[in-house]
């Protein structure tokens, strides 16, 4: 979910020449909230927030009516309700979202096999080869939008451009329920007046670094020599941003993009001071991450720990392993060590997260002559096999046994990140 609340919406006139805008970026509008509205049609047109309903829950999605009050994703629910007290809060239903995600992705794939899903609710499409069958990119985009609406009742926004990042920026501008076509020759006119923060890959820190030097618009970046940008941002980022500012993005739509990280995080129902409680949570998350790694056939070269304290300061610490792993035991030991290294007795922990990064395809791994984790590997494989037959959770570490899920725990699967 973006910060976009629909203000400043920009959509294409029907007459624009779209033959060069063959890359589409399709983004579902307020996806989780819109799916929930299918079950609650009486709430249409009212502010609705989806997220953890207990005291410490966070917002995962909100309708545009709620966003106009300043509600944003990842915001604590208590804050969201202060901003928008009239909002209806609905709990999340992930299985519903993945069901609808599959349905809309299937609609995209009816148009072209070149579909690159970016997350559960957005994808890139390359429609260059679909033009003879289905018409111009704008026609294809409108066909998709109409089919998504008639098949699922959901709306989406589409950006069409000749480069991926321009298409993504265009769909953001078109939200909600719009289409914006940026033909190749109009790319620079589209980009240059936009603020640098609108560029894909420019986060808050980069944006501040650029603005401190008076670089506010993408046009300013384009007018700055790449060497100067490199001094501010480092060689790679400087050259890349300069290229993007000139609309240059060689990345193609690729149907197979390896996931770069997988993680879990959990906000405790109440701040935790007991380190044993934190370690148990780490063990549980390490286990989930490892199961997902093995299922997807990846091993991780780096594991990271995220801690958010009661005052919302957040730290992330990562550690690179000697050899990539997909074992819960190994991941747990590493994040526990990191945690023990940063732990102070007065800590009050609000959230912990475990993430596996630098994923590599496990089948291509060079095997090692000896494996210190061999016994654990056998054990975890056996658990995988048992889970396959009897369902998840039948076998788990003893310290996680017979502990009913604490009331008020709001768990977020932070999903594959790319």
């Amino acid at each position, binding site marked *: 979910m973006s910060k976009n609340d629909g203000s400043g919406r920009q959509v294409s006139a029907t007459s624009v020449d779209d033959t060069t805008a063959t890359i589409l970026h399709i983004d579902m509008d307020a996806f989780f909230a819109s799916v929930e509205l299918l079950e609650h049609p009486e709430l249409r047109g009212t502010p609705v927030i989806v997220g953890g309903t207990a005291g410490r829950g966070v917002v995962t999605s909100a309708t545009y009516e709620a966003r106009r009050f300043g509600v944003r994703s990842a915001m604590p629910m208590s804050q969201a309700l202060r901003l928008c007290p009239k909002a209806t809060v609905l709990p999340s239903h992930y299985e519903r979202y993945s069901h609808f995600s599959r349905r809309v992705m299937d609609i995209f794939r009816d148009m072209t096999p070149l579909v690159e899903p970016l997350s559960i609710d957005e994808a890139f499409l390359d429609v260059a080869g679909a033009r003879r069958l289905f018409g111009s990119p704008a026609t294809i985009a409108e066909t998709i939008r109409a089919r998504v609406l008639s098949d699922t009742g959901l709306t989406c926004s589409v950006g069409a451009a000749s480069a991926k990042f321009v298409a993504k920026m265009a769909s953001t501008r078109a939200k909600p329920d719009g289409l914006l076509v940026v033909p190749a020759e109009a790319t620079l006119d589209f980009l240059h007046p936009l603020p640098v923060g609108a560029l894909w890959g420019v986060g808050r820190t980069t944006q501040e670094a650029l603005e401190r030097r008076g670089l506010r618009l993408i046009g300013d970046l384009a007018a700055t020599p790449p060497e100067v940008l490199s001094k501010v941002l480092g060689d790679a980022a400087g050259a890349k941003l300069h290229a993007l500012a000139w609309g240059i993005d060689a990345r193609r739509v690729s149907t197979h993009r390896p996931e770069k990280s997988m993680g879990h995080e959990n906000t405790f129902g109440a701040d935790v001071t007991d380190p044993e409680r934190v370690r148990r949570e780490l063990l549980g998350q390490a286990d989930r991450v490892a199961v997902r790694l093995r299922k997807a056939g990846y091993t991780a070269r780096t594991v990271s720990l995220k801690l958010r304290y009661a005052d919302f300061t957040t730290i992330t610490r990562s550690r*690179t392993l*000697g050899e990539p792993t997909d074992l819960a035991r190994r991941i747990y030991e590493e994040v526990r060590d990191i945690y023990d290294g940063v732990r102070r007795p007065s800590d009050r922990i609000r959230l912990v997260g475990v993430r596996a990064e630098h994923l590599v395809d496990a*089948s*291509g*791994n*060079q*095997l*090692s*002559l*000896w494996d210190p984790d061999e016994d654990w590997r056998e054990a975890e494989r056996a658990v995988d096999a048992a889970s396959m037959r009897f369902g998840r959770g039948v076998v788990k570490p003893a310290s996680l046994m017979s502990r009913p899920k604490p009331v008020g725990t709001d768990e977020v699967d932070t999903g594959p990140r790319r």
Partner: protein
Amino acid sequence: MKFSANRDVFSEAVSFAVKLLPQRTTLPILSGVLIEATESGLTLSSFDYEVSARTEIDADVEEQGRVLVSGRLLADIASRLPNAPVQFSTDAARISVSCGAAKFTLLSMPVEEYPSLPEISAESGLLPADSFATAVSQVAVAASRDDVTPVITGVQLEIGDTSLGLVATDRYRVAVREIDWDRGDNASGETSTALVPARTLQEIGKTFGHSGTISVAITATDERELIAFSANRKTVTSLLIKGNFPPVKRLFPETVDNYAVINTADLIEATRRVSLVLEREAALRFTFTIDGLTLEAIGSEQAQASENIDALLTGNDTVVSLKPQFLLDGLGAVHSEFVRLSFTKTDNPNKPGPVLITSQSSKDQAGADNYRYLLQPNLLLR
């Protein structure tokens, strides 16, 4: 301080002293070379708290003294001087180096802040330089270059009374070699171990390879142990890596009855050729049958390649998947016309048995040296 020295001798000494300096150092002062002029001549040394190098050369010393100067810069200058005696003198913080018609003025670094080089205790034994240098080059290829696990970035020296063992591994392969050595009066009947950073040991091997014998000393200072190698008025010391080296020697099979003998150069060339089409990190498939060896590069959509070469197989037909660079490292280290690849048995379906590479002086005669290189094959895809 003021002295003059032979240009070749001086240049060679400077180059030796800076060779082991780290490329980047956190403390600028450690990038310096310490030059000390005394009655007996000149001493040049460098030290970065891990590794030290020290050499003595003859010089006409007019005025004694100590000075610290940027090592890389002095080495660059020394290597380009014209063929004439080197005149070296200091005036406060200025150093002047002149040689023939060339003159350089350098700024000295604060010599008072330079750490003192480690003390070395009495000699522990004598090594034959050439066989030591060969053994180091054969074994160090298998050492890990990944600082995440420091213990395996070293070469483990296993020091007995009459033999010195060298072992290195990066988890994917293990290389071992034993050479004769003389512990002399220090003979104790026991084997001790020393874990030396592989990079340093490789430099030591190159530097001392033609020095006849190398004197070795192991010293314990405070908490850390260090090893010193000396020959020809040159000494290199290195801190030993702390920690326990993994017990990798037990990975070697006692006997193997399934093996192939191949011409080493043929196998190296074929491996290089066929792996041209491989993607990075991908493995080659080696199929051994009674008809010979087939190398195949598969699994890449862009291109495939295969090649057949002669191989004398004993035992069963065998297929293994090996990373080409790992195989080439072993083949490059056997130093023999033929090579034996032995296939160890395993009961683990998830892990093929390791391949043992040893030298072979002819098609049916095993090599005389005791170099062994054990390599873990990958799972066969498809």
